């Protein structure tokens, strides 16, 4: 195995990919129409018949699916095959409302693991590698997805799951892990813990990390790369669309290649639903091309991003998506200003703080309030109250410059903000409680 897991498909010409996509979409739509009454009703309402879909160009005629549909249809409403053909379920964390349950046949699991295997090879993984999977195993897709991909590549796979950092470090050192897979915030935490134990970034055998399942910034990438002495690769996926591996980064680290033979991506205007041309910023929409148990047509991810077909130096031809710039869900409107958590993260790293923070938004006397708790670093501590208050004021100033509104900063002791082992809960919007 060389640079690619499946060279033929990963470097296929545009025409070849289109041919595969067009063949698959016709079958996929037919499969959904025949097996998923919930979606058949949506198509009927819109007056679209399976015969109307002859190529991926016709996808824009199809109705959208949203997370709300998935919740309405819970648990079996979007199931595309008999339950006895299914071998697995996974589920979203359910932090915002009812859970979404996704089903998999063995074909679906294989397809997903194949996507993850491509991501691992793109990050330099070979049979010689030792992959430490510190994503959670369980209903969360992270652990099992990467685990399956890792085995497909032939790597020695350490199914650590998340948490128990002591043990993570012990195995990492004793078994010489070469690739770490987990959420970026957990990678940063492992990096901090290694430093605390007196390890230098060169003391471990890690060469790469594949991090995803939560938003992270370029600044955070550089921090992690420095603290672990690795090259950090982004990976993208949603439980709804199978899990991590829908898109992944290559060594260029400039956007993630979408596995186009399995997923068709569009960018739409989130307000009008209109499909936007390549290079436009908008909401990412995915259509599965060959899923059996949980096929989703035109699923709105709520992730804001840009697609590009610019030629990639890695040789892969699949379309690339940029790192999501924020979720339409995550975007907070505070005192009329759009605020993304990623902007707050950028300021924190620039000002020498860890990107571990908690945002609390509330409404007091009809005015929105923004409170951000940030962990003080040992080197920043002073025995004088006024020194620490001055640091809070300085950070408030830097935030005001970036965000356009002034938050209240609360410095708290290190590790007092819960670290994410699955997905980070970084925003608590209490305004919703009052509505």
């Amino acid at each position: 195995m060389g640079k690619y897991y499946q060279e033929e498909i990963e470097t296929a010409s545009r025409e070849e990919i289109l041919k595969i996509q067009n063949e698959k979409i016709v079958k996929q739509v037919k499969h959904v129409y025949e097996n998923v009454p919930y979606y058949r009703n949506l198509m009927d309402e819109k007056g679209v018949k399976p015969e109307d879909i002859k190529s991926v160009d016709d996808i824009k005629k199809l109705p959208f699916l949203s997370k709300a549909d998935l919740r309405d249809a819970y648990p079996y409403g979007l199931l595309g095959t008999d339950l006895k053909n299914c071998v697995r379920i996974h589920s979203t964390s359910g932090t915002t409302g009812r859970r979404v349950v996704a089903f998999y046949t063995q074909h679906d699991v294989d397809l997903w693991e194949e996507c993850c295997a491509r991501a691992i090879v793109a990050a330099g993984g070979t049979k010689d590698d030792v992959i430490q999977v510190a994503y959670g195993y369980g209903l969360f897709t992270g652990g099992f997805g990467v685990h399956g991909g890792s085995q497909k590549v032939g790597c020695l796979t350490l199914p650590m799951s998340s948490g128990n950092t002591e043990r993570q470090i012990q195995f990492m050192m004793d078994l010489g892990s070469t690739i770490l897979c987990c959420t970026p915030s957990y990678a940063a935490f492992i990096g901090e813990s290694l430093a605390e134990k007196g390890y230098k970034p060169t003391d471990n055998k890690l060469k790469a990390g594949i991090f995803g399942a939560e938003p992270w910034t370029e600044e955070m990438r550089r921090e992690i790369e420095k603290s672990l002495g690795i090259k950090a690769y982004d990976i993208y996926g949603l439980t709804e669309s199978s899990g991590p591996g829908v898109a992944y980064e290559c060594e260029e680290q400039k956007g993630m290649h979408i596995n186009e033979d399995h997923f068709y991506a569009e960018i739409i205007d989130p307000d009008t639903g209109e499909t936007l041309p390549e290079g436009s910023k908008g909401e990412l929409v995915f259509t599965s091309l060959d899923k059996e148990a949980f096929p989703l047509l035109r699923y709105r991810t709520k992730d804001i991003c840009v697609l590009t077909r610019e030629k990639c130096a890695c040789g892969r031809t699949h379309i690339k998506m940029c790192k999501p710039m924020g979720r339409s869900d995550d975007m907070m409107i505070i005192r009329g200003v759009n605020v993304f958590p990623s902007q707050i993260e950028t300021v924190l790293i620039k000002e020498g703080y860890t990107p571990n923070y908690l945002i609390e938004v509330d409404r007091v006397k009809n005015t929105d309030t923004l409170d951000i708790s940030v962990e003080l670093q040992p080197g920043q501590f002073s025995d004088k109250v006024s020194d620490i208050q001055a640091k809070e004021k300085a950070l408030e100033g830097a935030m005001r410059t970036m965000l356009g509104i002034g938050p209240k900063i609360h410095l708290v002791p290190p590790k007092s903000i819960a670290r994410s082992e699955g997905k980070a809960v970084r925003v608590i919007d209490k305004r919703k409680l009052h509505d």
Partner: protein
Amino acid sequence: MAIRQLSVFIENKKGKLSDAVKTISEAGINMRAMSIGDSDDFGILRLIVSDTAKAYSLLSEDMIVKVTDVIAVKMSDKEGALYTVLRVLEKADINVEYTYAFTARELGAYVVFRVNDVEAAEKALSDKGIVLMTEDEIRSI
């Protein structure tokens, strides 16, 4: 004559202060003086203890701890003793960041001063015949 003070960063939340105090007392370390400076968000616990090194290593396992030099003066029963010290420091252009008083049965009352320049403060006070407490003296209470 400087005395080592430990400062601990604690969250202004129920139980956080007692966590720190518990860590020390369970290790058999005695507190010689204590004060807290706080804001709405955080508190800074300042301690002078019988075994600074041991307390530092225990506390710093999961808290931010810092060692700062301070000076301490025994307060005589004479009225105006504190005022005299403050006057001397002020005249010598030394800033007092904070002070706190503590009473021990055997030693009576003494006041801890956190100043911007420990050496200068020691000199200014001893020139005026004011004797500073030594670390041994405070620890041997």
